[in-house]
Every structure is written in structure tokens, then in C-alpha cells.
């Protein structure tokens, strides 16, 4: 009944207003490339010092996060310019759908999938947070290394049609991830004496550069060819909403599977939204292939429904270690932890006892945030799709302005803007010569994670590699990785992917 009390708190008109304001601000910043929920919440934090009651602030923050994630998927789908790493997987199929006139369906499956997964994962947060939190903290460095390896090998589906090109992209990402201060030894790597590189190349810079700026340069280079025309929007099937009966049939399972992948990954103390969204994409693609379908890469709705659901579910997952142990596992969670401390609340094992009112109100506000997101954004789809009717030159120059603004406001350093443009030029050439973009992002995220965790494990084991095979949990995960690499070929007796070379 604690949860009902939580709802009683949240459903006060003022708090509902905070939720609505949060979702709206969040959607706006999500649309902007580079400015994510963490930065927005950090900037709004000083304003909330003046709130008498922390509940209003947390309700607003939850709204901002959900809104930003949804806003990010909107630009991914319509313009192929994800602003956050969590929206990269959505862009792959989502933009293909938009190019084929199916933007409405893509946005709708993203919105409804986010809602469904958000509700399911919030229920899980409400009822199994404690045991999951205790389980998550059992993972040691060696286990995280194994998990990163599993993620790396099982997302090969992201590599696209040509394995060689996909691997080149991945290696490029791994290299970009190496640049900067090495957190284990404190040494600088590949910075070439440039101070701008000492903190590494931020994932946001990579994404804004490769996607937003690279896409604009590519579009500009082809504007006279006119060969990249976007199909006119298909008529919305009004009776069933934005989704046709067929779309619903193909979406609901990916929503549930996405939620099932997103929540546990978010709950791990090295979690976040990127890995589960990529995994969900891979999973849906593999299923489609096994069923003999080849529409992935050509706008398969499952490739939007799954990752979007996983993305939203991972946020409730991230709150598990935050609320039960005081461990922030994403940038947004870290800022929320700072907010808790300002209101003199110590997230941790005792928070559920000492401030149970607040915890339940926060959980209730997640439900409310999800509902508001759906209510506000479904009608807005009609507005968003109009973006596609904006003349290309105007639209793309607008994207460039916003991307520049986003990168600059993130760092306050014009050199970072140049860096993003440099990466944008790289993104142009990758598009020009048919290299997939998503594996670069994957490399930047997973490379440092794999390396850091392995080296931590080695420090802990005095340099002995046996550490990664003597722990049962580590071994199980590594075996899973091997199986997921080999299984697709064994089961179907299919020729190796090298033979699929185009």
C-alpha cells in the first residue's frame, strides 16, 4: 500500500505540473543533439534548491529523463541524428522506416514501446529492487570483463552487410575509445600533446560528429543529385491509431523482450542504456533471420520497438543500485545522487526505511511520467513528421547550428567543436564509401569498458590471467559469449559470414 500513498503524493496538481514540465523540457533537449538529460538536470539542480519538498524535483527529473530519451529517438528516426548513445540502435531501422514513408509507425512504436517497457520495469523496481540490488553488487571486475566480451561478440549483427567494413568501423571506434587519460595508470594515450584530448573523446562528441554533422555533410554533397529522396508519408491507419494491425502484431513481443533485456542490464553497477539497446537490436535481427525474413536494414519495425523498450526499461534498472546501494551507474543517476544529497537524503541500504515516502513517490512518479509521455507525444507525432517536409537545405543547416550549439554548451570549449567537425568529416567519408556508423559508437563504448575491467581484474589477481576463468560466474558468461558467436553458424549449417561479402 506504500505505492498507493506514493500515487496520492504524485497526483497532486502541482506535482503533475512538475511532471509535465519535466517531460516537455526533456523532449526538447532530447531533440537537441549533444544536450542530454544529465546536463539538463545538472543545470536545473540549483533551481530546485529552493523547493521545500524534494518530491517535486525528483518528479521533474524523472520526466526530463523519459522525455529526453523519447526526444532523442524522434530525431534518430526522422533525421538519422541520434543525440544520445542510447538512441543509436533506434536510428538504424528507424530512419530506414522514415525513408520509406513509415515515420508515423516508427515514432508510434517507439512511444508505445517506451511506455510498455517503462511500466513493466517500474513494477519490477517497485517489487524486486532489493534482491536485484544485492545480486548486482556480486559482479566483480572479471565478470564485467566477460560481460563486455559477451556484448562485443553478440552485437556483430550491427556490423551491417559487409563484415570487413563493419570490423573496420568497429576497430576505428575501439581506437577512438583509447584516446585520453588511462584511468588505471594515469598515463596519456594518443593525445599528441593536445590538451583537448586528455579527457578522451566524449561519446557525445563522437555521436554528434558522426551522425548529425556527418549526415549533414553527406546530404549536402548529394543535394544536386537528388537521389536520396524520401518517400512521401504513408497515410495513417486511423482506426488502429498510428500502427496498423500488422505493426501491432510485430511490435508487442519486441517491446516485452526489450524490457526483459533493459531492466537487468540497467541494474548492473556498470550498466547504462547503450549495451541493452544494442543487444535488443541484435536479438530482434537474429530472430528475423531465423524466421527467414530479410527486412532488417530496410526498416523493420522490430528494430525500433525492441531497442526503444530496452532503453526505457534500463532507466528503472539504473535506479535499482542508486536507491538500494547509493551507486550511480549512469551520468543521469550521478546527478540524481547529487540531488538526493542536497535534500539531505542518503541513497543506500536504508533509504527504503528512512525515506520510504519519497522512494514510493519517486516510483509512482515514474508511472506518471510514462503516462504523460505517451499522452503528450502520441498527438505530437503529427507535428514531428512535418519535419520531413521542411526543405532539405533549411533543415540541414538547422541541424548543423543545433549540433554546434550542443557541443559547445556541453564543454564550453571551441576546440571540442572542431573535434566534432573533424569526426563529422570522417562520418562523411564513411557514408560515402559505405562503412556502417553504428559499430564506431559500439567500439567507443565497449572498448574502454572491456579494457578497464580486464586490467582491474589483472591488478586484483596480481597479473594472473587465471582470474578470468576461475570464477564460476565469469566462466559462465565467457562460455555464453563463445556460444553466441558459434551457434548461428552451427545451427543453420550456414556458410561463414565472410562468404556473404557484397
Amino acid at each position, binding site marked *: 500500500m506504500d505505492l498507493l500513498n506514493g500515487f496520492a503524493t504524485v497526483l497532486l496538481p502541482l506535482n503533475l505540473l512538475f511532471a509535465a514540465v519535466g517531460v516537455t523540457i526533456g523532449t*526538447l533537449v532530447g531533440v537537441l543533439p549533444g544536450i542530454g538529460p544529465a546536463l539538463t538536470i545538472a*543545470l536545473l539542480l540549483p533551481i530546485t534548491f529552493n523547493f521545500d519538498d524534494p518530491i517535486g524535483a525528483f518528479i521533474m527529473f524523472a520526466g526530463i529523463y523519459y522525455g529526453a530519451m523519447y526526444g532523442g529517438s524522434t530525431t534518430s528516426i526522422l533525421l538519422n541524428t541520434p543525440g544520445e548513445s542510447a538512441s543509436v540502435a533506434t536510428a538504424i531501422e528507424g530512419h530506414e522506416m522514415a525513408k520509406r514513408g513509415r515515420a508515423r509507425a516508427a515514432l508510434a512504436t517507439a512511444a508505445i514501446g517506451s511506455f510498455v517497457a517503462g511500466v513493466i520495469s517500474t513494477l519490477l523496481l517497485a517489487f524486486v529492487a532489493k534482491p536485484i540490488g544485492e545480486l548486482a553488487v556480486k559482479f566483480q571486475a572479471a565478470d564485467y570483463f566477460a560481460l563486455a566480451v559477451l556484448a562485443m561478440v553478440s552485437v556483430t549483427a550491427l556490423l551491417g552487410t559487409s563484415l570487413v567494413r563493419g570490423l573496420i568501423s568497429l576497430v576505428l571506434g575501439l581506437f577512438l575509445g583509447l584516446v585520453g587519460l588511462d584511468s588505471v595508470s*594515469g598515463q596519456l594515450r594518443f593525445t599528441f600533446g593536445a590538451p583537448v584530448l586528455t579527457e578522451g573523446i566524449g561519446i557525445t562528441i563522437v555521436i554528434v560528429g558522426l551522425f548529425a554533422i556527418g549526415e549533414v555533410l553527406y546530404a549536402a554533397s548529394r543535394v544536386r543529385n537528388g537521389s536520396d529522396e524520401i518517400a512521401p508519408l504513408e497515410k495513417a491507419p486511423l482506426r488502429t491509431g498510428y500502427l496498423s494491425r500488422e505493426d501491432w502484431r510485430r511490435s508487442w513481443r519486441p517491446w516485452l523482450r526489450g524490457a526483459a533485456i533493459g531492466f537487468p542490464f540497467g541494474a548492473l553497477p556498470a550498466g547504462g542504456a547503450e549495451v541493452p539497446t544494442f543487444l535488443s537490436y541484435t536479438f530482434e535481427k537474429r530472430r528475423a533471420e531465423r524466421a527467414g525474413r530479410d527486412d532488417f536494414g530496410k526498416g523493420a519495425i522490430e528494430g525500433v520497438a525492441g531497442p526503444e523498450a530496452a532503453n526505457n526499461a534500463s532507466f528503472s534498472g539504473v535506479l535499482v543500485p542508486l536507491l538500494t*546501494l547509493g551507486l550511480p551507474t549512469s551520468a543521469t543517476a550521478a546527478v540524481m545522487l547529487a540531488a538526493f544529497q542536497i535534500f539531505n537524503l*542518503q541513497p543506500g541500504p536504508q533509504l527504503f526505511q528512512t525515506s520510504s515516502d519519497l522512494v514510493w513517490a519517486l516510483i509512482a512518479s515514474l508511472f506518471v511520467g510514462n503516462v504523460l509521455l505517451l499522452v503528450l507525444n502520441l498527438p505530437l507525432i503529427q507535428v514531428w513528421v512535418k519535419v520531413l517536409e521542411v526543405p532539405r537545405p533549411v533543415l540541414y543547416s538547422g541541424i548543423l547550428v543545433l549540433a554546434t550549439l550542443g557541443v559547445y554548451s556541453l*564543454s564550453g570549449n571551441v576546440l571540442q567543436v572542431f573535434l566534432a567537425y573533424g569526426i563529422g568529416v570522417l562520418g562523411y567519408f564513411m557514408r560515402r564509401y559505405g562503412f556502417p556508423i553504428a559499430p564506431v559508437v559500439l567500439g567507443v563504448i565497449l572498448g574502454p569498458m572491456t579494457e578497464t575491467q580486464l586490467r582491474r581484474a589483472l591488478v*586484483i589477481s596480481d597479473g594472473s590471467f587465471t582470474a578470468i576463468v576461475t570464477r564460476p560466474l565469469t566462466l559462465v558468461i565467457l562460455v555464453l559469449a563463445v556460444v553466441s558467436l558459434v551457434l548461428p553458424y552451427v545451427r543453420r549449417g550456414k556458410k561463414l559470414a565472410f562468404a556473404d561479402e557484397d
Partner: protein
Amino acid sequence: MRPSLRSALAVTAVVAVSACGQFTDPAAGGGSAFPSRNLEIMAPAAAGGGWDLTARAMQAALRDDKLYDKAIEVTNVVGAGGATGLAQLLSKGQGDAHQWMVTGLVMIGATERAKNGSDLTQATPIATLTAEAEAIVVRSDSKYQNIKQLVDDFKANPTSVKWGGGSAGGSDHLVVGVLAKAAGADVKKIQYVGYSGGGETKAGVLSGDVTAGVAGVSEFKANIEAGQMRLLAVTSPKGASDAPSLKEAGYDAELMNWRGVVAGPGLSDADRTAVVALVDKLHSSPKWQETLAKQGWTDFYKKDVEARNFIANETMRISQLVKELGLS
């Protein structure tokens, strides 16, 4: 529908610009007597971190208690653990009393590593403001009941103890360094696992990755109260209610994670006196005192000459330590 999209984008842009407040007056230049124009407080790190919170708290106190009659803006300059911000202050803030920067212990190690020729002592020290002690903890089922047992094992067999804390070269790593030196252990043999922050350090201690964890005292508070971790020692001169300081335990080691404020290099004496006087008023203002209490920051106020000597001593001590730890 096109106008509505445009206005949406325009609103977004305005939100972004005004929220970030990073657009500085291009006409700004050094030379004029203080206070004569807008004040710029730089946080040499991203929004939301400790330096940023300090800069914004200073801004709020100066504004709300009406200590400064012109605009005060906070800018964030991200990079190299603060070394990028310092380099910018040194190159663009020459003789300028209107450009302040928040700084702290971590910046000394960062500049030592960045090797871009800048050094915190080149700026004009105004004051130190706050400090937080660091804590050394173990998981509650650890065999170590007190700091002496841990340090004895560490001395006898340095590689048997795995230390966990924030990234290599940061304040947590320095704590292990000063402790090793004070105890006469081999600094080169420290086994240190660098995590990306206090949260990950907690996970590392709880999962059993590391033998002992180091982070700011507030970081471990909830876990200690819940009985998941045991506090062995703190790094302040005086101990906490439930654990001794390293000094009290017999190790001549002390390290406070302090924060302060500096202004551009080469300030005239008149300007420096005026800035110090303003920061003095800031420090005693009700809003600042309220912020200290709210954030749980310990007051660590030293001003002008005292601050200059303190920062010079810390720079020498920490640079030396960073070299000995093999980090530069």
C-alpha cells in the same frame, strides 16, 4: 505547421543558451579597477560536479546577499582534470580581477600530468573555501578491524592489499600515497584500482574486488551506517566519532580534499585587496553559510597570503607525490 516547428526549435535554442550561460562578453578585457564590470567565475569542470557546485554557490551568495551589483556568470571549461581551465585563465586573465576560477587539490596532480606549462601558483590565490576529509573503509566481513592491521599487512606484503578509489592520480590515490610514505611502505608497489568515481568504488568494495576503498567521507556514510562497510580511518587532522584520523593512529599523513578560488595572474595589489575583501564578505554571508550546511561542506577558509602559502605548499607536496607514484 512549419512555423510551429520553427518556434519549437527557437524555444529550444533559447532554453539551451540561457540555461548554459556560457556566452561571455567579448568586450571583456583586463586592466580596469575592481569591481567595474561583470564577474566571471569559471568552473574548470562539467556542470554538476564539485567545482561547478562551488562556483554556482558562490554566484548565488554574491547575488542573493547583494554583494556584487553587476552580473555574475558561471562558465564551465571542461578538460584534463581542470588543467584546460587553468591554462585558459593564465592566458586570457592576465591582470584581470574579474576572472575567477574555482580550484582544488585535484588540479595540482592534473597540471603535473598535463605538462602544458601551467601551474596553479601562477594564478593569484584569493582564498580556500571548503574541504572534505577522505575515508578508508573495508567491507564489514573483512579481517581488518583497524587501520593498523591493514597497514601492517600492506607494509609486509604490499601487493596483498588492493586499494580502490577514484581515477589514478586523484585525491583518493594520493591518500594511499601519503599513507604509504608515512608508514614506510614501498610507494612504487601500491596496487591501486582506479574507478570512475565514488559510486563505482563502493561497488568495488562491496563486490570484494578490492581490499580497501578510499573516497570522500560522505560517499561511504550510508553503507557504513547500514553495516555493509567498516570505517578504518579518516584523513583529517582530527578523527571521526567512530574511527581515528591517520595522525591519531600513528601515521604522519594528512590530506584534505580542499576547494578554493583564484583570480587571473599578475593582479595589482589594489585589485587583489579588493577581491579578497569581497570574498571575505562572501564567506561570512548568510547564504554561503547556509550552503555549507546544506551541502555538508566543511569550512576551510584561508585568505590572501595564508591561502597563497597553503596553495604553494600543497603544490610542492602533491607534485612530488604524483612523481613518486609514477604518474607523471
